């Protein structure tokens, strides 16, 4: 069965410091992996995805993520956090070519302090 784990409910970081939001996944076949961000009382905004190719994926607002097949991880990173990055972040996985549905993690709240 497909699943996604986001082990941290909240991540706290100071503005200007690097940030990492962790995600591990489980699928039977090849994964399509996604990161979305959700601001209060809003929908989900797409940040980046891994489909195939280079393991380091760059996305919107300076975010990037690294696909690690052996560790089944897809951690979200940013070299220098901004206060405006404070939001709820969701990792999601879909089994390539065989499933339509996205399986989401429980979300990680990122708090960037000035």
């Amino acid at each position: 069965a497909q699943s996604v784990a986001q082990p941290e409910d909240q991540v706290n970081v100071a503005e200007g410091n690097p940030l990492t939001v962790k995600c591990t996944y489980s699928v039977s076949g090849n994964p399509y992996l996604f990161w979305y961000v959700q601001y209060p009382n809003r929908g989900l905004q797409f940040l980046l995805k891994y489909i195939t190719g280079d393991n380091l994926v760059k996305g919107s607002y300076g975010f990037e993520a690294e696909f690690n097949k052996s560790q089944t991880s897809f951690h979200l990173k940013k070299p220098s956090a901004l206060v405006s990055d404070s939001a709820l972040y969701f990792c999601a996985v879909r089994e390539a070519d065989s499933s339509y549905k996205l399986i989401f993690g429980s979300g990680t709240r990122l708090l960037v302090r000035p």
Partner: protein
Amino acid sequence: DAGVTQSPTHLIKTRGQQVTLRCSPKSGHDTVSWYQQALGQGPQFIFQYYEEEERQRGNFPDRFSGHQFPNYSSELNVNALLLGDSALYLCASSYRGLSGNTIYFGEGSWLTVV
């Protein structure tokens, strides 16, 4: 370029009533999915429509039904509403459902059942 649009944005219904939520996909997209996001949780897949047919369904009862129209817009219907149906309902669209194309979400419809 309009993104995914949903209506209504907020609504309140009474237990036992029926509700219809509407979604217009992003321009150029032909695949629509619906997700339910309960408070404090990640989105849960309800079903996906492609070429006016339901292609995959999540673990939701038959009270949840949908439709896709020839212009690719979609409706989500929920019958016999329960208090537990209170949630944010998200519509997502993409091009060619099984591909690795990006899935974009709308702002959602907030449903409160009293």
